[in-house]
């Protein structure tokens, strides 16, 4: 009897093992998978970081990496070479201009430097009073004045403050701008928090996140024109667009409430069934005894 059980088991194990072993050697298949971006954990393989955290660097240079690690850029996988260029995986060529290394920008080059990615913001900034003053005099606020350089944090309305703005001019106009931004900004904050909550609860929010990002980026771009009237004029458009996202978020919360209620209904049904079956079981037990 055992012979009849063992033979099929051995055959099954052999077939499965051989199949799996052969699968390891399907080179084309493997390469295709391994070369994909999700294939290998690269971690922090960066010549810039390796060198800047080594003991050969002075403490200020080492500090730059620490500041970057805590930054909004780092959280969004924007690394050294994305701004400064260079060959990130080749230490010997990492600072070669032929490999696109830009180094640190001069003060007057900062708007172009940051504008490589933040294109629309750069254009609005250069058209604004801030940008024109900076271009004309080489002084005045540039990107790093308000946002810092390596320890850049997620931008918020809190950046607009008396301490920072009154370094160059009175706070009154900045205060007016902050008030104009308030409604849309608070909607943006609420949506952002609700999207995070939904995501944690397992709701797919990709589409709403993209719509949120579009509005968020557009509104922040508009702000850099430092034109209070333009911000006020466009605010209603953004409010309308954001309300549409809020509507979808509200639907998602309703769906979650439905799921909870449906599960609760089934929970109560099974509690009821448990009680009925338990009583039946007891009554049969008594009959038997």
């Amino acid at each position, binding site marked *: 009897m055992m012979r009849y059980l063992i033979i099929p088991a051995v055959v099954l194990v052999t077939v499965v093992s051989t199949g799996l072993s052969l699968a*390891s050697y399907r080179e084309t298949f493997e390469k295709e998978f391994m070369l994909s971006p999700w294939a*290998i*954990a*690269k971690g922090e393989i960066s010549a810039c970081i390796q060198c800047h955290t080594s003991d050969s660097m002075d403490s200020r240079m080492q500090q730059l990496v620490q500041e970057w690690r805590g930054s909004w850029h780092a959280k969004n996988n924007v690394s050294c070479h994305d701004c400064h260029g260079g060959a990130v995986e080749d230490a010997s060529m990492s600072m070669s201009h032929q490999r696109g290394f830009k180094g640190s920008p001069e003060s007057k080059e900062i708007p172009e430097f940051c504008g490589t990615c933040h294109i629309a913001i750069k254009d609005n900034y250069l058209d604004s009073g801030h940008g024109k003053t900076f271009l004309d005099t080489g002084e005045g606020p540039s990107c790093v004045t308000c946002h810092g350089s390596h320890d850049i944090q997620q931008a918020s309305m809190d950046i607009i403050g008396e301490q920072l703005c009154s370094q160059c001019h009175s706070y009154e106009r900045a205060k007016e701008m902050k008030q104009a931004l308030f409604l849309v900004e608070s909607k943006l904050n609420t949506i952002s928090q609700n999207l995070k909550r939904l995501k944690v609860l397992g709701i*797919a929010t990709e589409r709403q996140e993209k719509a949120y990002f579009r509005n968020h980026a557009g509104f922040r771009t508009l702000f850099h024109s430092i034109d209070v009237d333009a911000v006020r004029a466009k605010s209603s458009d953004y409010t309308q667009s954001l309300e549409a996202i809020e509507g979808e978020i509200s639907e998602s919360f309703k769906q979650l409430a439905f799921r909870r209620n449906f599960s609760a209904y089934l*929970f109560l049904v099974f509690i009821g069934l448990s009680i009925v079956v338990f009583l039946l079981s007891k009554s*049969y037990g008594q009959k*038997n005894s």
Partner: protein
Amino acid sequence: MWKKFIHWIDVRIGLEELVNKHLRQFKTPKGATFWSTLGFVALIAFIVQAVTGIMLLLYYIPHPEHAFKSVQTITNEIPYGWLFRLIHNVGGNIIVAVIIIHMVHVFLRVSYKKPREITWVSGTLMFLLVLLSCITGQLLPWHQTGFWQTTVTSTIPSFLPVIGEGISSYMRGGESVTGITLSRFFSFHVVILPVFIVGLMLIHVLLIRRQGLSTSPAIEPETEVASPEEFRREPHLDGQPCFPHFSLKRSFMVMVYFTVLFFILTFFPNLFLPPDANIQADPLTTPESIRPAWYFLAPYQIIKTIPNDVLGISLVVIFSIVLLLWPFFDAKDAGRNIRKRPMLLSLGLIVLALWVIFTIWGMYS
């Protein structure tokens, strides 16, 4: 109408005789309590996993670029897809808990002794395969939690000398967790492991039907021969018929299983889905803390606590082998009443206490 239908079936398959022979005349011992039904509950839980798994399989795509999206689609767009996914997710954890409680009950009743050694071995093997199913299943949604749990889990065997690296590489299909690992785990999760589990389940159930349910040594101390030399099935003449008495007990426990399942779904739907389980796997971003599922916390903490990796993994492997072959380690002539065997009782309780302590430690370390 109903009687006609039953008669129609009865003429063709002999339903009445089948029920009489296998349910009414099959007697369960006097000491069969609600705890004795946990094996049946585990069987129902397995069927629930199979049914919900098949429903998920209709929409799931086992490819790194589509797996996460397909699970998101199941949860958010397919009607009642969220229900199947959550039942499968929560059910996978409950089945492990049910089997553990079942094994503790069998151990405390010393029901594994002769002639039930094969029943214990097949049950323990099934438990280990269910754990493997959990390991392979956690990677399939291709989220951050599953990806990094698999990275850790597939590293652990590499601590074993000589064969360790081979096992790790065999699990992953390369040096790291990739699309090959996903294909491999998918095959194991949906075909290979279920086939072996069902095979063992058949053996397990067949043995229980042949030998009959084991008695409670406290209630029926004299009914079983301590060490029978030839096969004999305990008739339990003064016991209760399996149907309806024991079947109602079973049904009650199955209802309790579903009640617990829906209690978790109602009040803690994300109990086994941490926030990182809603983020697509990203090999470039390591989560702040990677912790295995609760049932692996104890071995994980043991390996972490013991400074020598080889010693740590060896302890876990040795424990698994001893657990699997426990009936052959237990004293041959000793009785089945654990109250009269303080050494065995102490050993069981110490192992259980250590397991709980290491689990809690692993949770907060």
